[in-house]
């Protein structure tokens, strides 16, 4: 079993409107064969719309989709032959696991012997040998998930679409299935488009991330690029820059910007956008170091709430002007402590 490889799937200004609301505002994206692409964003950002447009379940209201130069956006889903894993799995409740997995093959009038051989292979692949004669209602969430994946990949589709497939599973199972999905992607040589609102999931799984917001692509890049170099404050917030400190720009030039917080502390950071006077300095909670003496890029704050997270503590502190600050540190702190927090220049991102 292996995915049929294509060279390039091209989305050219793909647009989808529902009445007056535009859910997807002209998406451009090129997906290469064998790639794992994650569409990432909060609910309502257009990621599921994009996936349904790819599957053919939603007609486009503008733009085109081409697969190796051949236009496919006017084909119905059954003619596209892309595999899809639904958020609620959408298993056929009146069919056994085997018949669910073999459904696509029987629709294609595959000879019985071949159908059985391929279903056997798929059942083994997702380790459901013992459950293959059961019905979906008799399976656990994780097992249902495996059936849904096996059903989609048994047809060796050129493209596998996954719509938040892990969101209905509990935390431990989610981690396990995540690895499973990546393993299948690699071992079967699939091309996968994966929709999620969970940045950790997207970073862990994907070769390339597409961050969406309000129907518009914000940033496309490798997990590393998006994680370390978000292009705007929205992507930064999504990538774990929980602290967005409002600042005034005092000077900017080249790659650096000097800014001043409301309580008068001066910070030097990386300039990510052309700045006007008002800006935000984005800092990850784990990039702060608790230090004893004052110095450059050092903020003073009062500890308010301390959460125990094992090796680390999650601390909520307040700057002198009252704005909140999230900090993760291995130092042991207690509420009421006045602390100094230092952050390296390259870890402060300044956005307009």
């Amino acid at each position, binding site marked *: 079993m292996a995915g049929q490889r294509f060279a390039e799937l091209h989305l050219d200004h793909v647009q989808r409107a529902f009445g007056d609301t535009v859910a997807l505002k002209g998406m451009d994206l090129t997906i290469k064969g064998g790639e794992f692409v994650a569409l990432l964003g909060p609910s309502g950002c257009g990621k599921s719309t994009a996936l349904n447009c790819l599957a053919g379940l939603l007609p486009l209201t503008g733009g085109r989709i081409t697969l190796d130069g051949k236009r496919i956006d006017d084909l119905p*889903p059954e003619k596209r032959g892309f595999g899809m894993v639904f958020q609620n799995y959408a298993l*056929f*409740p009146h069919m056994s696991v085997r018949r669910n997995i073999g*459904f696509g093959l029987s*629709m294609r009038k595959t000879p019985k012997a071949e159908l059985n051989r391929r279903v056997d292979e798929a059942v083994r692949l997702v380790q459901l040998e013992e459950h293959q004669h059961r019905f979906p*209602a008799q399976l656990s969430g994780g097992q249902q998930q495996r059936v849904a994946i096996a059903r989609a990949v048994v047809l060796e589709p050129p493209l596998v679409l996954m719509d938040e497939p892990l969101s209905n599973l509990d935390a431990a199972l989610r981690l396990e299935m995540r690895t499973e999905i990546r393993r299948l992607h690699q071992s079967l040589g699939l091309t996968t488009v994966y929709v999620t609102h969970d940045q950790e999931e997207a970073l862990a799984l994907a070769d390339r991330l597409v961050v969406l917001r309000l129907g518009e692509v914000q940033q496309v890049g490798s997990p590393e690029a998006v994680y370390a170099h978000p292009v705007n404050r929205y992507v930064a917030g999504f990538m774990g820059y929980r602290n967005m400190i409002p600042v005034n720009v005092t000077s900017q030039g080249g790659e650096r910007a000097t800014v001043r917080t409301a309580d008068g502390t001066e910070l030097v950071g990386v300039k990510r956008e052309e700045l006007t006077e008002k800006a935000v300095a984005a800092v990850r909670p784990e990039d702060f170091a608790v230090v004893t003496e004052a110095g450059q890029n050092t903020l003073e704050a009062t500890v308010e709430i301390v959460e125990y997270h094992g090796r680390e503590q999650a601390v909520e502190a307040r700057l002198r002007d009252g704005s909140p600050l999230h900090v993760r540190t291995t130092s042991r702190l207690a509420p009421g402590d006045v602390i100094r927090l230092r952050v390296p220049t390259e870890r402060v991102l300044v956005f307009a």
Partner: protein
Amino acid sequence: MTAIVVERASLKHRLAEKGVDRVLWLLVPGAVFVVLLFVYPFLYGLQLSFQPKGGGSPLRNYVTFFSDDYLAETVWITLRLGLPAALFNVLASIPIAFRMRGRFRGKRALTTLLVIPITLGTVLTAEGLLAFFGPTGWFNRVLLALGADEPAKLTHNYWGVLFSLIITGFPFAFLLTLSYLSGIDPTLEQAAATLGASRRQRFRTITMPLLAPGLAVTFCLSFVLAFSVFPSAVMVGNPAGETHVMSIAAYETALRDNDFAMGSAIAMLMALVMLIVIGVVLIWRTTLYRGATGGKG
């Protein structure tokens, strides 16, 4: 003192564990209603049917029914009306309900239009049929204008009653089918589509198997409604001849001939025929998948 309190509390608790609590009192009015207005009259009619008017064997009324051709034939006459009407209503409601699932402009208006016949009542429907399909009605006037030799006879016979049953019975079948159909998760069909199933294959392999148990119930209810036909069989049918249905036979025997025992026997046989048909359909239903269909229903 404390011991007694503890005992009382624990008894109440034990009963509550078995589902016995004060909420059960809410069942009383309903239970009284069912016993007084259904169970008692039914059992009274049942025992009455075994006490023939002129005396004799308890089964004499039943023997009379089946040895009198005019009476025995009512079973087939009623089945010939009830079964096709129920079948037609169920089958016709499938494609319409299928198209009415989604949201679209004018859905409410269309649903209202389809459901309105329920509110009309059989008498009004029968009058409408007489005016429309009667010998001088519009339908025949158009037929004659188009060159027909004589008006089609569509009232005061089998067809008039069948039309009436379809008009009054369709809304029930449609509403039930629509609710069963909206209970099927639409992503199942989408999943089938991504797996290569054409529209027809999706309907045959996903929608129909999940809808069938609901259709069986819809058929049973439609059949019961049609089988107990009375007013339209009189008004647009031929109550002495081809639409001499069981309910008319029971009514005439009991109230015209004053033979309540025989009337009861006919009513009991009517119930028996309905139970047999429903039984057969429900036995077929047990062979189907009847679990969750994943939707909002």
